[in-house]
């Protein structure tokens, strides 16, 4: 089970308090009716699914209830950093994701 640091509660809590909410930074277009089908499909269904560092959303459902973002290494499952919704994706020091 992952231990996840909620940036709002400022606490490390067990994974079962959270819900995973998919890839982070996938922005919905302000006016979807203006998009062509490819772009709309890209937003709805296509994901980067990297083997390595993944930016993803979590929601602290059994805590503060808020969404936040995390960087996690999908090979080791190690959480590298969590940050509040709306913040830019943090840069990682180069060695961070090869551990």
């Amino acid at each position, binding site marked *: 089970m*992952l231990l996840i640091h909620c940036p709002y509660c400022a606490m490390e809590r067990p994974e079962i308090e959270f819900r*995973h909410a998919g*890839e982070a930074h996938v922005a919905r277009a302000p006016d979807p009716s203006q998009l062509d*089908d490819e772009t709309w*499909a890209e937003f709805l269904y296509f994901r*980067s699914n990297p*083997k390595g560092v993944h930016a993803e959303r979590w929601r602290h459902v059994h805590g503060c209830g808020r969404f936040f973002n995390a960087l996690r290494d*999908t090979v080791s*499952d190690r959480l590298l950093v969590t940050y509040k919704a709306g913040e830019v994706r943090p840069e990682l020091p180069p060695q961070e994701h090869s551990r």
Partner: protein
Amino acid sequence: MQYSFLNLVRQGLSGHQDWPAQWRSPEPKTAYDVVVVGAGGHGLATAYYLAKEHGITNVAVLEKGWLGGGNTGRNTTIIRSNYLWEESEAIYEHALRLWETLSRELNYNVMYSPRGVMMLAHNVHDVQVFKRHVHANRLAGIDNEWLSPEEAKAFCPPLNISRQLRYPVLGGALQRRGGVARHDAVAWGYARGADRLGVDIIQNCEVTGIRRDINGAVEGVETTRGTIKAKKVGVVAAGHTSVLMAMASLRMPIESFPLQALVSEPIKPVLPCVVMSNSIHAYISQSDKGELVIGAGTDVYTSYSQTGGLHITTHTLEAIAELFPTFRRLRMMRNWGGIVDVTPDRSPIIGTTPVPGLFVNCGWGTGGFKATPGSGHVFAATIARGEPHPIAAPFSLERFVTGRLIDEAAAAAVAH
């Protein structure tokens, strides 16, 4: 060597010391007509049918680890064809019919055992959904029948149908032709069959790049054992599909999740069929060795780690122990994970891609073992002809743009 009673006796006379290897371990050639990436059941079946049905024998199957070491060797082997939508019925039933004669076809005992797959309903929604499945399947000529709780218990005596359960059994849908098969034997049987027809199976050979010519068409692959040329490349890499397609600058509607399973200590025959419950995310059968084979739902986050959280399996075991109180004192022997390639509609993607010469067969997620023969069969035809086999056609990558999804996700939530 053909496996037969006569050869068994002959080999017995020499103390079983002279059985030939089941496949060669060739050095990769510099070029092939077709390269298949991934020696799981689907990739090996693809190569087998390319050689057998289409006469294309200059084929290599490249595998980064050992053949059958991916999801094929990690799955809980449930086979059934009672899916909801016509497109799914067509492909899973195509596979089921091939299962019925596969041991003979391959001259290899894949231990296909149609012992019945029973899916339990625990609430009104389940009852309505399963009855809808039963009707849809029967219209398509696929066997599926509704059982009352008492009939379910008669079919599977250790089942607890007490009304006091947290999730009481309100009935079940039974597909009698469903069952299980020996996962390793499926990979080995197809590997041996393909090898005998001239296919090179190259293990410990990871594909690290996809080469393209000036027009963007595929011209070969880079591997840890050198460059291998081919005008047609079929990617059949399950959980690693996104990684491979990224080598051709393609993004996929796929996310990779861990899916876990576990087995108990072996006991005498106690469970005569396969029992599944989508609502409580648990399914169980008994292997011929006597181990109870138990599966769960996926973990919640994407991963390539082939492990998962213990709380997921704990949850599953709690459900199993409630449905089958007699199993409560069994010890679990092993627990493992595989990485499954999940699509938004929980249906596979089989066909061509925007890159000429690049084909893909993926997205089988938590439930592709049952499709192995059918998937390989239609994918081989797709690669050979350069256009989708009619059964494969609805499972195109374009469906995510046109919106013509085959939504088994809404139909089943968990689909094994």
